[in-house]
């Protein structure tokens, strides 16, 4: 049990993007790549309050997530998590999550280097995130089941 938890934590530490699948109110499947913050068995995903994922989990809260290490290539182990999602709104209760999220993604050295490589885009990037921060929600997914599966590699 402890070994499994250590393996899961080590795997999660090597992932920065999670692919999340949910069922839209119309019944069609949705899958989106998202940034995440992990804390005590829950995953926090920042979203626009009217995003398709927010609309989906409001009706069908069961989601599936794939954690695929960014540096792995070829056939590789991927962590598949089933969980239950809930939309959390309001700025102050989620301030800690938003701060962790910003440090992890916007102020990471690789992110800053990327902004410097595209200086002509910085104004539009700021505009994009400012527009979305006014209407943001956080989706919390509580982990219910975790399983390692093997993903086929890209074409050789």
């Amino acid at each position: 049990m402890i070994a499994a938890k250590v393996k899961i934590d080590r795997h999660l530490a090597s992932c920065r993007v999670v692919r999340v699948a949910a069922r839209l109110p119309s019944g069609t499947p949705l899958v989106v790549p998202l940034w995440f913050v992990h804390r005590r068995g829950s995953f926090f995903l920042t979203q626009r309050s009217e995003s398709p994922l927010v609309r989906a989990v409001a009706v069908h809260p069961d989601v599936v997530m794939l954690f695929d290490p960014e540096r792995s290539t070829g056939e590789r182990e991927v962590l598949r998590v089933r969980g239950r999602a809930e939309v959390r709104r309001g700025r102050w209760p989620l301030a800690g999550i938003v701060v962790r999220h910003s440090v992890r993604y916007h102020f990471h050295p690789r992110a800053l280097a990327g902004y410097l490589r595209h200086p002509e885009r910085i104004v539009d990037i700021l505009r994009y995130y400012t527009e979305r921060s006014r209407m943001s929600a956080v989706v919390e997914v509580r982990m219910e089941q975790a399983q390692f599966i093997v993903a086929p590699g890209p074409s050789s």
Partner: protein
Amino acid sequence: MALRYSRFGMVDSVPRATRRVSIDELADLLADPPRASVAFLAHDEVHLIPVRVCRKGDGFLLGFRAEALTPRTGTVATLLVDAGVFTPELRGVRLRGVVDGLADGGPDEELTWCLLVADQVVAWDYSKLRRSGR
């Protein structure tokens, strides 16, 4: 284009930032996707399976490992191909369509191949963020 009220009660048109691109602008990503996954419903549950992808005519061949659940013919599925971790490098394509049965002729015989015929495409590239309308 979003609309909002100005201080004087007039409706302004405010160009919003957009990350949308056409799927043709991501031809290199689709030619050699680093990772791909497909979502579909089966047994009244949503499933998400990592797959290998290659283009075949107007459709996409999805390669599943032998032990993986595969979607039935006629199932609506959503394929995600994406790359990148931080803002300017994030790009991807989401294709929704119908699974058109098991397909022969996939490039790897160890995988089970299905054909997805997409009818809805969303593509994005954060390195091309711009105000909409530009």
